C-alpha cells in the first residue's frame, strides 16, 4: 500500500515536471497575441478596393479597405509574425493544370508585382504586429482571398503596407 502511494507520488511529480518543461502557448515577444478569433472579421467590409487602386491613390495614415489574394512570392508569409503579401485580384496566377508547384508566386506576372502587391500586417489594439504566423493565427494559406480594413502606411518609394486589426477571409 505504502509502495503504491510512493509510486503515485513519483508519477505525479514526473507529470508536474513534464508539464513544467512545456512552453507557454501564449509566449510572444511582440503584440498581445490574443485569440485568433479576435483578428478574424465575421462580416465582409463594404466597398473594398483592389491593391493596385490603393497603391495609386491611398495616402499615408488613411483608413482603407483592401481586397487581394495572398501571394506575390514563393513564401508570402513572414515567419513568426502575422504579416503577408497580397496581390491585386485582377492579376491571374498560374492554374493548377499548368503544373506550377507554387502558383502563388505569380511567376508569369513578375513584372506587374511592383504596382499590384502590398504588405498586410495584422496588429493588436496598440498597433503592434502580432507575434504569431498568419497561417496559424488566421487559418489562411497561399492564394486565399482576404479583405482587410486598416491604416495605410506609405513610404517615399510608393510601397503600401496596411496595418489591419481584422481580416475577413473570403470563402
Amino acid at each position, binding site marked *: 500500500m505504502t509502495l503504491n502511494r510512493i509510486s503515485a507520488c513519483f508519477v505525479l511529480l514526473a507529470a508536474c515536471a513534464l508539464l513544467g518543461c512545456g512552453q507557454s502557448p501564449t509566449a510572444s515577444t511582440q503584440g498581445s497575441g490574443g485569440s485568433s478569433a479576435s483578428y478574424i472579421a465575421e462580416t465582409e467590409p463594404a466597398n473594398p478596393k483592389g491593391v493596385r487602386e490603393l497603391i495609386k491613390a491611398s495616402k499615408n495614415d488613411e483608413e482603407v479597405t483592401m481586397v487581394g489574394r495572398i501571394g506575390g*512570392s*514563393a*513564401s*508570402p508569409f*513572414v*515567419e*513568426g*509574425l502575422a*504579416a*503577408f*503579401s497580397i496581390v491585386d485580384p485582377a492579376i491571374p496566377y498560374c492554374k493548377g493544370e499548368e503544373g506550377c508547384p507554387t502558383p502563388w508566386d505569380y511567376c508569369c506576372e*513578375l513584372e506587374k*508585382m*511592383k504596382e499590384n*502587391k*502590398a*504588405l498586410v500586417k495584422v496588429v493588436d489594439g496598440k498597433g503592434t504586429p502580432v507575434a504569431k504566423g498568419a497561417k496559424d493565427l488566421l487559418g489562411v494559406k497561399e492564394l486565399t482571398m482576404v479583405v482587410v480594413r486598416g491604416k495605410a502606411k506609405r*513610404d517615399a*518609394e*510608393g*510601397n*503600401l*503596407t496596411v496595418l489591419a486589426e481584422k481580416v475577413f477571409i473570403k470563402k
Partner: protein
Amino acid sequence: MFSLRLLPWEYGVRNLMRRPTRTVLTLAALTIVTLLVFVVVGFIRGLEQSLSVSGDPAVVIVYSIGADESVENSAIAARTAGLLTASLEGIQKRYGVVHASPELYLGTRVSVGGSDESLGLVRGVTDATPLVRRRVRLIEGRWPGRGEVMVGKLVAAKLGLKAGELAIGSSVTFDRHTWRISGQFSAGGSALESEIWGGLNDLQQALNRQDLSLVALLMSDAAQAPEVDLFCKQRTDLELQSLTETAYYRKLQTHYAPVRALAWLVVALVAGAGVFAGLNMMYGAVAGRTREIAMLQAVGYRRRAVLASLIQEAVLLACAASLLAGAIALVFFNGIAIRFTMGAFALRLDSVAVLVGCATGVLLGVVGALPPAWKALSAEVAESLKAI
C-alpha cells in the same frame, strides 16, 4: 533441462580453416560487396554533410526575387547593402562594424595554365565577408589583393585538376582575365570550399557589372531573421527576397533527393547481390557437409545447435570481410573529393557510413547462411548419414 548444448566455438573456426581456398574466395567476395556499400554510403553522407554544414542559422541572404533559388541568376542594386544595414536593427555589429557582406556570385568557365575550361564558382567578396562567413579560414597564403584570388580547398576537385595545379603563385583565367592565386582557404567542409574568391570591386570592374548578386547578413540572433523578410516584403520596389542560409541549402538539398534515393537503391542492390553471393557460398559449403551435419545430430546435438554453428561460421567470415572493407575504405577512399554541379564534396566515411557498412556485412553473413543451413537440417538424419 532446457539448456541448449552448443557446438564448441573452435569447431566453427576450424571448419573455416579446413577449406582455405573457398574461405579466402568467399572473404574476397564479401569484402568487395561490403566495400561497395561503404563507398556508396560515404558518397551519400559526403553530399548530405556538405549541404547541411553549408548553412549558418544566423546568416540571412538577401537576393533578387526573380532568381528563384539560384543566387547565380540574382542581380540586385549595389545600394542594397547600405539600405539593409541602415534599416535593420538586428544585424550583428561589433566595434562599429556592421556584419553585412555584399557579394557577387557567378558560375563561369575557368581554366588553369592553358588547361581545358571547367565550370567554376566565383565569389566577389569584401573585408566584411569573413565576419559573416564565419567558417572560412585562410590556411595558406594571404587575402587576395588587386588582380588576385584565393581558392577553396576543393576547387581543384571542382575543376578536375590536381591539387598542385592551384598552388599559390599560379594563375587562373576566367572572363578574359588572368588572376594570380594568393591563398587557399577552408570552410568547415561547406560548399564555400569549392569557390574562388576575389575582391568585389576588382571583379565588378573585370565583369563590367555595378550590381551585386546578394547581401549576406549575420544577425545578432537567429530569431531576428523574420525582420529581414519583413523588410523585403515591405520594400516591394527593391524586388528582394530573403532566406536564412540553412533554409537556402535545405532547398538545394531537395534537388538532390533523387540522387540520394538512387544511391540508397544502389546500396540495397549491392547488398542484395551480396546476399546471393553469401547464399551461393553457404549452399556449397553445406552441401559438402551433409554427412557431417547428420553425424552431429546423431551424437546428440540439436538442430538449433548445428544451425548456430553454421551461422557462426558465416558471421565470422562476414565480420572479417567488414573489417577488411572498412580498413580499405578508410585508408583509400575517405576524404576523396567528388565533383558535382554546385561544387565538390569529400567522400565521408563517418560513424553512420561505418555502421551501415558493417551492419550490411554482418547481415550478409546471417541471411546468407540461414536458408542452406535450414535445408541441410531438415533432411532425415538416417538418410543424410548414407549420403555420398
